[in-house]
């Protein structure tokens, strides 16, 4: 955990360093704001890294943000995190390949059937309802233009 925190802090230093390096070549007007932000960012993230390495950083207690579940064994938690990331990446890949209108019901069916282990009938019914709602709401009512997927484009559909 501590190693990860150090890496994250290092990442912030790299981002600010990159911003400073890139901005120095710009005109005064263009670089004024990015530099006035990136320089203090680099300084503060370096201070934070030094505090971390010296073991003097503050604990997370009191940080104004949510806490994640801690009652799940780390190994299971890691597996579930990887699992849900795979689903998210898979969803985006499906949208790229098939477009939103096809992905919506397909993803709902696949997730409910194979991840949540809902019955075949339940997953199919949910997918059908999703398809109906998606078309009614986003396509007929709000008129959102969804790009076709790569596969439809290849097939000329």
């Amino acid at each position: 955990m501590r190693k990860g925190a150090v890496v994250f802090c290092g990442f912030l230093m790299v981002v600010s360093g990159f911003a400073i390096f890139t901005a120095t070549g710009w005109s005064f007007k263009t670089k004024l704001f990015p530099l006035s932000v990136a320089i203090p960012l680099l300084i503060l993230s370096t201070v934070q890294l030094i505090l971390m390495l010296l073991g003097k950083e503050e604990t997370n207690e009191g940080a104004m943000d949510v806490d994640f579940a801690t009652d799940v064994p780390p190994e299971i938690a890691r597996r579930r995190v990887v699992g849900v990331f795979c689903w998210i990446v898979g969803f985006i890949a499906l949208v790229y390949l098939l477009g939103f209108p096809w992905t919506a019901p397909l993803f709902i069916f696949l997730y409910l059937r194979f991840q949540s282990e809902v019955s075949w009938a339940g997953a199919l019914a949910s997918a059908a309802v999703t398809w109906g709602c998606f078309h009614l709401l986003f396509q007929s009512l709000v008129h959102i233009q969804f790009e076709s997927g790569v596969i439809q484009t290849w097939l000329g559909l």
Partner: protein
Amino acid sequence: MFDAFIEGLLLVLQWKAFSLMLVGMALGFCVGLLPGIGGAATLALMIPFIFKMSPAEAFAFLLGMHSVAATTGDITSVLFGVPGEAISAATVVDGYPMAKRGEAGRALGAALMSSLLGALIGAFALALAIPIVRPLVLTFGSPELFMLGVIGISCITSLSGSTARGQIKGFVMGLLGLLVATIGQERQSGSLRFDMGLMYLWDGLDFVPVLVGIFAIPEIIDLAVRGTSIAGDRPPEHLSSGVLEGVKDTFRHFWLVFRCSVVGVFVGILPGAGGGVAQWMAYAHAVQSAKDGKDRAGFGKGDVRGVLGPGAANNSKEGGELIPTVAFGVPGSGAMAILLSGFLIMGIMPGPDMLTKHLALTFSMVWTLAIANVITVVLCLAILDQLAKLTYVRGGLIIPFVLLLVFVGSYTANGQIADLMVTLIFGVLSYFMVIFGWPRPPFVLGFVLGKVIETYLFISMTRYGFAWLTHPIVVGLIVLMAIVIAYPYVQQRRQRSREPLHA
């Protein structure tokens, strides 16, 4: 004046105007619930429908829809940790942890009641402030507006940790948000910055994919990791009593709600700041009003005051935004700019005429804001029991639908697959922020304010050089910023000096 006030009410209560307001409210209700599809975008979609309406009908329809979207956006934020609207993001920070603790009803009751009070205060401000606010708006030039933005970020960053060292993380996140906001074309010279050779980044990053990624993805991952419902294995709260408790909370912390509403009105009046800023300013104020570090520690973990502040400011800023739009024809936000086009379609020129010739119409807007919010909150309170039950549905059944809504919402920003990638990237970044204890609110505020702050800085530097730093109001605001930053340290020292006495 009083005659115009009553005439304004009668204009809204005409059957056609009232029916159109109800239709607008129904649309706003749905739009508010759906993540990403903003009230401003829907306003734009509805503009073509007002051509055949009278001015009173058109504004009842448009304002009814717009004001309700801000109220119902809080519902999705509380129940699923996904901001229903970009302007409801701050409600997630404490509202969703309350839902996870089994207090969804209480959080929703608090969010809705504070929204209602905020809307009423905003409407009241609109009715009263037009003659007063003109000199105030004219006093604030670019340097003063720049400093106000910087104070907003300082407020929230200085409150991001319980100790001085913890606050470094807050400042780092605020600066990172500002840096991310610089991506894309620089507005003044047109030069490209950090565009990585991608045309998608030329216009900079849109708020919706970033905000949705920052708040929704980590919550979805956490829900999947826990493998339970949002409220976990806790016994269901008695929902109606939970809602009642939330309503009571609003009145228990009435002065906080009032102050946050005033913050919302004030931010709404300032051109360009927008609702995204008002909610975070109000959240920072709610945190700052905590008595000591111990009292403050609950924020971000389900403190009802963190729901009340943004809820009130979100809705009061509607009235605030209308003030410069109606009185000077200067829209305070994107949504108000669209509304301004509605004025022009109706053949009405915002400005002094709105305070003389069309005063009744101006008051009809006040009434629409008030009536639409009262009806929505009463309706929501009636169906809240059913909505809050969603937090007890197994996570595995909720996740795919939330994911779908999240990504459809983010896709609406530009209609490109790249929007989904942005959501994913910021979702991953946000996940690590939470894991390693880096607060997200300063990042979001920095990101939201970045472009506005840079524009004001640029204008200030071009017009005054460094002399703007000596403007009396700027000096006053710099002192205020120093107080804001030093306040937690002073509070901490005071607490430490008290502790041995109590021991």
